[in-house]
């Protein structure tokens, strides 16, 4: 089990003169949740479509579950699960018929298929659904049903293309619980999203900017590399003027309003919580409290996009 579940080597796709995916190289280990982040049009879906054998790469190569996507797309298709961006279920059919159909499409049949469908309805919390058609279900439920359809045949690798777009937070949380259970059971998950909070669930994250993979690491390591500043949050009164004054000091790299308080990025060698609190008080603020804050993936994402991908190569 040392082979990676997915390995892409200089995977490239051009549409005419436009390069949608530009020499992307990475590996995903078995049982890993791998997040693929990027703005709309950054090349996330194109990458997925190449990895599942739906789109031929212009150049480069990829192995998925041990099969070459260019030469053996059918073997790839049989060993993966895929949930497309607008999870395309048949809305006029009852939920369970969707499951039975996709099961049949993957070659499952008879009692085994029935049993597996029931098992998945249980797993995704959809047992006892009485809806006559899938179209009557709310988005969050449909999304879980689509996931169930994608994993009926127990694929080793599951590709999810923006699975939670347009779904409410509670449903997203329930969805990710299922994803993590799957990964804990050894299934490899390749997921694209632009919800940065969801990316925290991933073991590793790849960041796409304009078709290139500009960063790839664990969330913690990405934060350390891309946001080396210490992030502090100050609360109190008269902070606006004091903050502006502080920005002129050496080692203060950024000051931004943050709710009623202030968000500061400072050089960790020069500034700590106490120094910042004292400096703000000296500049006229009152009741100042300063606390350390964890840089978010949003900070990372903005830093990456700011630098336009003049990145360290993707690891």
């Amino acid at each position, binding site marked *: 089990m040392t082979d990676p579940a997915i390995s892409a080597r200089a995977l490239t796709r051009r549409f005419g003169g436009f390069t949608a995916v530009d020499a992307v190289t990475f590996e995903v280990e078995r049982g890993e949740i791998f997040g693929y982040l990027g703005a709309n049009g950054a090349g996330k879906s194109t990458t997925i479509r190449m990895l599942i054998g739906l789109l031929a790469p212009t150049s480069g190569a990829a192995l998925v579950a041990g099969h070459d996507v260019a030469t053996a797309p059918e073997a790839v298709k049989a060993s993966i699960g895929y949930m497309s961006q607008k999870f395309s279920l048949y809305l006029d059919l009852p939920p369970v018929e969707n499951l039975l159909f996709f099961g*049949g*499409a993957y*070659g499952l049949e008879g009692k085994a298929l029935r049993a597996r469908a029931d098992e998945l309805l249980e797993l995704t919390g959809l047992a006892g659904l009485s809806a006559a058609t899938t179209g009557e279900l709310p988005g969050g439920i449909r999304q879980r049903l689509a996931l169930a359809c994608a994993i009926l045949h127990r694929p080793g690798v599951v590709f999810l293309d923006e699975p939670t777009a347009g779904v409410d937070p509670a449903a997203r949380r329930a969805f990710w619980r299922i994803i993590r259970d799957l990964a804990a059971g050894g299934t490899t998950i390749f997921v694209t999203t632009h919800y940065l909070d969801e990316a925290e669930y991933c073991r590793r994250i790849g960041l796409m900017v304009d078709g290139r993979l500009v960063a790839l690491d664990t969330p913690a390591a990405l934060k350390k590399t891309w946001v080396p500043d210490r992030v502090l949050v100050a609360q109190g009164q008269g902070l606006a003027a004091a903050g502006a004054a502080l920005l002129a000091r050496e080692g203060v790299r950024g000051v931004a309003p943050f709710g009623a308080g202030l968000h500061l990025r400072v050089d960790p060698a020069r500034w700590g919580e106490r120094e910042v609190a004292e400096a703000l008080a000296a500049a006229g603020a009152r009741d100042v409290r300063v606390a350390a804050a964890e840089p978010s993936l949003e900070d990372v994402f903005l830093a990456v996009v700011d630098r336009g991908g003049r990145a360290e190569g993707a690891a």
Partner: protein
Amino acid sequence: MTPKERIRRSLVRIGAMAAKETLHIQRDPRTLYLALGMPVVMLFLFGYGVSFDLERIPLAVADRDRTEESRALVDAVTAARELERVAEVPAERADELFRRNRALAVLVVPEGYGRDVARGERTRVQLLVDGADSVSANQVLAKVDALVRAETRRLSGPGLADRAPPLRVQVWTRYNPEGRSALFMVPGLAAYVLAISAVLLTALTIAGEWERGSMEQLFAAPVGRLEIVLGKLLPYVVLGMIELQLVLAFGTVAFDLPVRGSAVLLFSIGFFFLAGMLGQGLLISVVAKNQLVATQAGALSALLPSLLLSGMVFPIGNMPLPLQLLSRIVPARYFVHALRGLLLKGNGLDVLWPDLVALVAFVVVILGLATARFQRRLA
């Protein structure tokens, strides 16, 4: 995987496609109407509406003679009720009647008719016919001609009958002795309505998958192109066969359509015709990727050739050569020909095999094209 296992898996996938498609059909009343309601309604409308049989032809009479003899002639012409006397007018007003569609023909009996008849001399009557509708005009001419001949024979009396010409032509019409156009039209109409509904049925299905976005999901599964095509086709073939029986049953009940040939051969020919038309719909659907375009292309490609090039209305032998050649790739041509032969004449496979071969060839070619044009990759 052994070949046997591979075939079994493939059958499972085709079965899953067919079962899903059947559910779609069950849940969509439009499909059922298109398949079962529309053909019967169309057959009913066309069967009664598209009739070349004329009854109660409105006939105006301009009797300038006004004698017993002239009245006898008018009575003889209108006695059978095929021609109905609608007006007494002077002959100069014939045009006006035609323009207003009040009469199709005007019978003009000249002055002196009674006198000539009484003397046993040659005489003449005049028939003015509205030629705007040539089909009706020809029928009126034929009917009046026959009626006037009969009247002539009556007037000539038994003495003249002995001097009948030595050569007599007797016309004896086989298969459709009453000359009812329904018997001629219904097999053609059956082909026509089956063609339209079959092409429309499948024209929507693959285009629908593209529009719904489910095609991408389908392509990501290990379902082959031919498996998708066959799986989609199967439920519609079953539906089409029900449709065919319905249309034929309706034809026999409503229009006294005889079924003189073998029922097995009838349904074999029907099966391949339907499969071909459904395949044509699939091909359109594969190429169009859009339900609106598919519907229009489907309706046009089924309607025009089946109506104009099938021999349903216009005899193929009378067409210019390019059209005759074109009609050879229209399945309806073979189906109409086979259907007429089988239903009216009781023809068997010994006569109809070329039609059957042509229909099978069309099915193979059209399904091959649909599968070939069906790209399972996105780009």
